[in-house]
C-alpha cells in the first residue's frame, strides 16, 4: 500500500513537472504574446498542483485564486487590450541564439545552486495531522507573522495608489502629441 502511494506520487510529480517546465519554456519561446501568457497560465496551474503534492492545501488554493485567477488573468486582459500581433511585436531575429547564449551563461549558476541545495536534508518525514490546512496556517500566521502581515496590507494599499497614479493619462504627454 505504501509502495503504491509512492509510485502514484512520483507519477503525479512527473506529469506536473512536464507541464511546469514545458509551460515556462513555451513562455520564453513563443513569439506571440498571447501564446506566452497562456503557457505561463499552464505553468502556474501546474505549480499549484505541486503545492498540493507537498501537503499544502491552503497554498494550493491561494496559488489558484491569486496567481492564476488574478495576476495572470489581469496580464491577459492587458495583452488583449493593447492587441499587438505579428509585425507590431518587437522584431527579434536572433532570439534562439540569445536564448542559447544566456542558457550557457546561466548554467554554472544553476549547478552552483544545485550543489548548495544538495547539502541539505533530502528525505521527507511524515507530517502531523492537518499540516498545511487553513487552521494551522492561520495559527502560525497570527502568532509569528503578524507584523509582516500588516506590512503587506500597507504595501498592497500603496501598490493600488501607485498603479492608479502611474496608469493615469498624463496631461503633458497629451499636449506634446498634438
Amino acid at each position, binding site marked *: 500500500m505504501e509502495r503504491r502511494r509512492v509510485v502514484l506520487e512520483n507519477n503525479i*510529480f512527473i506529469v506536473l513537472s512536464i507541464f511546469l*517546465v514545458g509551460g*515556462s*519554456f513555451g*513562455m*520564453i519561446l513563443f513569439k506571440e*504574446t498571447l501564446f506566452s501568457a497562456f503557457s*505561463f497560465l499552464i*505553468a*502556474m496551474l501546474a*505549480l499549484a498542483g505541486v503545492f498540493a*503534492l*507537498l*501537503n*499544502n492545501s*491552503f497554498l494550493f488554493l491561494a496559488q489558484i485564486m*491569486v*496567481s492564476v485567477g*488574478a*495576476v495572470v488573468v*489581469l*496580464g491577459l486582459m*492587458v*495583452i488583449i487590450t493593447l492587441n*499587438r500581433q505579428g509585425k507590431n511585436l*518587437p522584431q*527579434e531575429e536572433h*532570439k534562439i541564439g*540569445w*536564448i542559447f547564449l*544566456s542558457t550557457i*551563461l*546561466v548554467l554554472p*549558476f*544553476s549547478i552552483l545552486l*544545485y550543489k548548495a*541545495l*544538495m547539502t*541539505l*536534508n533530502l*528525505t*521527507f518525514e511524515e*507530517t*502531523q495531522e492537518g*499540516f*498545511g490546512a487553513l487552521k494551522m*496556517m492561520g495559527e*502560525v500566521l497570527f502568532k*509569528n*507573522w503578524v507584523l*509582516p502581515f500588516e506590512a*503587506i496590507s500597507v*504595501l498592497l494599499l500603496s*501598490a*493600488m495608489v*501607485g*498603479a492608479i497614479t*502611474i496608469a493615469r493619462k*498624463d496631461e503633458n*504627454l497629451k499636449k506634446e502629441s498634438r
Partner: protein
Amino acid sequence: MIAENFYILSIALFSIGIVGVVSRRNIFVVYMSIELMLSGVNLLLVTLSRLHNSLDGSVMVLLLIAVIAGEASIFLAMIIQLYRSSKSLDSDNFVELAQIEKGNQ
C-alpha cells in the same frame, strides 16, 4: 518522493526566468519571466517548509503571493504608461532612465 526532484524543479524555474529576462525584448515576456523567478523561490520555500515540518515557510509563501500581486499591478500600469508614450512593446525603447542626455554632457 524525494526532495531532490523539487530542488531541481525550483532551480529550473528560476534559471528559465533569468534566461527569459536576459534574452527576450518583448516587455510582457520580461514581466512573466520575473514572475516565474518568484514562483521558483516560492516552490523552494514550500519544499523546505515541508521538509522541516514547520509552517513558517508556507506562511512566507503566502505573503510572497501578496507581494507578487502588488508587483503585477505596478508592472502592468508601467507597461500601459510606457506603451502610451512610445507605442511599442520593445524593451529597448524604455531606456530613458539609463541614458544621459546628449545636451547635458
